[in-house]
C-alpha cells in the first residue's frame, strides 16, 4: 500500500488483504489484526484453530464457541439450508480430507475413496446448539473456503463504518466490497493474465465475488477445487462466475458464487432472482452470460476491447 494512500495491504489467509478507507492508520491496523485473529480461529491448516478442533472432535463431542465465533458457523449453515446443500460447509471431508487442496500432500483421490467420503458431506449433521458446534459423524470436516473470505470482507467493512469511514474498498483475495466512492473493479480473464471487464460502481455499497477453476487445481483444471457435494466431483459448466449485488453481504455472495459454479446455465436466472444478485458467467467456449443486471445500481460494465 502506497505511502501516499490511506490504506493497508497484507497477506492473510494465504491471500492478499487490501483495505483503502478514509480512517486512521490505527483503525486500518486494528482491522488487519482482526483478520489475523479470524485466520487463527478458522484456519483449516492450523491444528490449534477452533475449526480444526471441531473437525478433530467430529463424532466425539461438541466444541464451545463464543457468540462471535458462532456467527460464521450459523451463516454457513443458513446458506447450506437455503441452497439445499449445493453450498455445504461440511465439504471438508472431500476438499481437505481427500484432495488436500492447499496442502503439499494434495492428490487426486480414487472413485472409491470419493464415494466413501461423500457420505460425510451433509450439512444436516452440523449441529449448532446455543454456544456449541458439533459434527455428528466421525471423519466429517468443515471447510469455510467457500464463505470465509466474504465474511472477513463484511466484518472489515462493518468495522470501518463504525469508525466513521465514509468511503472504503476492501479486497480479501478477490472478494470485494466498496462504498462511498466510485470504483472500477476488474474481472480477471480466466484465459489470460489480463482482465475481462470492468464493473464501474457508483457511491452506493456494492459487493463482488468470483469463483473459478483456473487458479486452484491439482494437475489440471479438470481437478479444480470447487466440488459438487452431491457427486463428489467437479462440474465444468463455467470457467469463472462473478456475483454482484448492491449492499454489503460478501458472505452471501461468496457462497452464491460456489452455488452458481455448480449450477448449469439453464438455472442461472432462477438463482439470480432467488438471491437477488447479478451474475457474469464465462464458459469454456469464451461465451459470457450476463444475468439480472437490471437489478444493479451501477454506472455500467465495460468489456475490454484490447
Amino acid at each position, binding site marked *: 500500500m*502506497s*505511502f501516499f494512500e490511506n490504506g493497508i495491504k497484507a497477506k492473510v489467509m494465504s491471500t492478499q488483504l487490501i483495505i483503502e478507507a478514509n480512517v486512521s492508520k490505527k483503525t486500518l491496523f486494528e482491522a488487519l489484526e482482526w483478520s489475523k485473529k479470524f485466520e487463527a480461529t478458522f484456519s483449516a491448516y492450523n491444528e490449534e484453530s477452533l475449526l480444526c478442533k471441531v473437525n478433530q472432535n467430529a463424532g466425539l463431542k461438541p466444541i464451545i464457541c463464543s457468540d462471535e465465533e458462532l456467527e460464521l458457523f450459523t451463516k454457513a449453515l443458513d446458506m447450506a439450508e437455503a441452497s439445499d446443500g449445493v453450498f455445504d460447509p461440511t465439504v471438508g471431508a472431500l476438499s481437505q480430507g481427500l484432495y488436500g487442496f492447499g496442502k503439499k500432500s494434495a492428490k487426486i483421490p480414487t472413485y472409491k475413496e470419493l464415494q466413501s467420503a461423500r457420505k460425510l458431506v451433509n450439512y444436516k449433521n452440523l449441529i449448532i446448539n446455543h454456544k456449541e458446534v458439533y459434527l455428528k459423524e466421525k471423519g466429517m470436516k468443515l471447510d469455510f*473456503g467457500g464463505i470465509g473470505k466474504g465474511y472477513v470482507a463484511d466484518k472489515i467493512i462493518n468495522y470501518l463504518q463504525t469508525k466513521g469511514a465514509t468511503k472504503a474498498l476492501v479486497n480479501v*483475495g*478477490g472478494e470485494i466490497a466498496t462504498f462511498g466512492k466510485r470504483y472500477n*473493479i476488474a474481472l480477471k480473464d480466466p484465459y489470460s493474465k489480463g482482465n475481462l471487464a470492468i464493473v464501474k460502481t457508483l457511491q452506493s455499497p456494492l459487493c463482488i465475488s468470483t469463483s473459478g477453476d483456473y*487458479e486452484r487445481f491439482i494437475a489440471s483444471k479438470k481437478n479444480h477445487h470447487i466440488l459438487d457435494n452431491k457427486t463428489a466431483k467437479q462440474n465444468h459448466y463455467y470457467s469463472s462466475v*462473478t456475483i454482484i449485488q448492491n449492499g454489503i453481504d460478501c458472505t452471501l455472495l461468496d457462497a452464491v458464487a460456489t452455488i452458481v459454479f455448480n449450477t448449469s446455465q439453464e438455472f442461472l436466472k432462477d438463482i439470480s432472482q432467488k438471491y437477488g444478485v447479478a451474475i457474469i458467467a464465462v464458459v469454456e467456449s469464451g461465451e459470457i452470460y450476463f444475468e439480472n443486471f437490471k437489478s444493479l445500481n451501477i454506472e455500467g460494465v465495460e468489456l475490454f476491447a484490447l
Partner: protein
Amino acid sequence: MSLKYLLISFMSLLLLEVSTLASSIKDSVSFGVNSYNDNADVQVYSPTLALFKKVSHEWMVGFSMRIDAISAASIRNGANAGHVDAVTAASSTEDALYDDIRYAPTVMATYDDGENMLSFGAYYSSEIDYIGKAVFMNYVRQLNEQNTAIGIGIAQSFDTWNPVYDRELPKDNRNETKIDFSVNQLISPTFSMQAIYSYMYSEGFLSSPYHYVLQDNIAKFENYPDTRVGHAFALKGVYLLDSANAMNFSYRYYFDDWDISSHTVNIEELHDFSSKFTSGIRFRYYTQTKSNFVQDIGSYQVNDAYFATDYRMSAFDSYTIGIPFIYRLDSGDKVTASIDYYQTTDNEYIQSWYGVNNITAVFTTLSYEFDF
C-alpha cells in the same frame, strides 16, 4: 520495467564509488535496504548487499545483490493502474504479498596500479516480464601527478521482454549502448571538476508493452521508433567551503533524435556536525521537452505511425529534495541513510493514465558498511 533505471543508477553509483576510491578501497561489506513509494500505487522495497574483496595489491573483486520486492497496480490490476482499483478473481493457491520480485546480481573486478584503473563486470536482472543482461567496463588514467584523470566507460545491455497478458510484441529485445568519456581535474586543493560526455544508443522495443492510447475511434498499444540516439554533456564539481562544509553540484544537458532535450541541475551541501556525523540537504531540478511523436490526448489518428501515452514522452518538470545522513562509528563502520521527496509538475498524461495530477514519490536508503 521503468524500475530498471533504479538498478542502472545503483550500478552507476557503484562504478563511481570504485572509480573514486579504487586505490584506497579495502575489503568491505555493506548491506541495507532502499524503498520507493509513489502516489501511482508503486512500492518497491529493496534489500541490498555489496561485497568488495582485494585479491592482490592491484586486483579487487566485487559482488552486489539487489532484490526488489515490487507492489504495483500496473502489475496487479492489469496494466492500466489508473483505471482499475481492484480485481476480483478465483481463489488462488497462494497469493503473494508482492506483485513481482526482481533479483539483480552484479559481479565486477577492478585493477588499479595507482595510475591506471580498470573495472569491468556484468549484471543480470530477472523480473516478471523482463530479463536484463549487461556488461560494463570503465577505464581511468591518472595524469599530471594525479591532478588529472581521464576515463572511458562502456556499458552494453541485452534485455528481453516477456510481457504478461498475452501481449505479442513486434520484437522482444531492447539493447542499449552507453559510452562515457570523462575528464577529472583538481582545480585547487579545495575544488575539483569533472566533465563527462555520454553517447547513448537504444534499439528494439522501446515503449511499454502495456500502455495504450484509448480514444473514441482508436485503441492502440504504444509504439515508439525502434532506435534512439542520445547525447549528454555533464559538468560536476566538488567544492570544500571550509573544514566542515562541502558542496557538490552538477549540470547535465541531454538531447536525442526523438527531439527530447533536458536540463538537470543538482546541488548538495554537506556539513560535518561532528567528527562522526555528517548531514546536509540536496536539491535536483529536471526539465524536458516532449518527443516529436507524442500528441495531445485525444488527437491521435488511426494511421499514425507512433502512439505514446507515457508522460515521459511529454514535456514535464520535476523537483527532488533530499536529506542525506552519514554516521561513523568508533569501530570505523559507517551508517548512511537518506530520504528524498520527488514531484513532477502537473501533466495531462499522468492524469490520464494514473488518475492523479502529478507523480509524487518518496525514496529512502539505509545501509551499514564495515571493513573486514
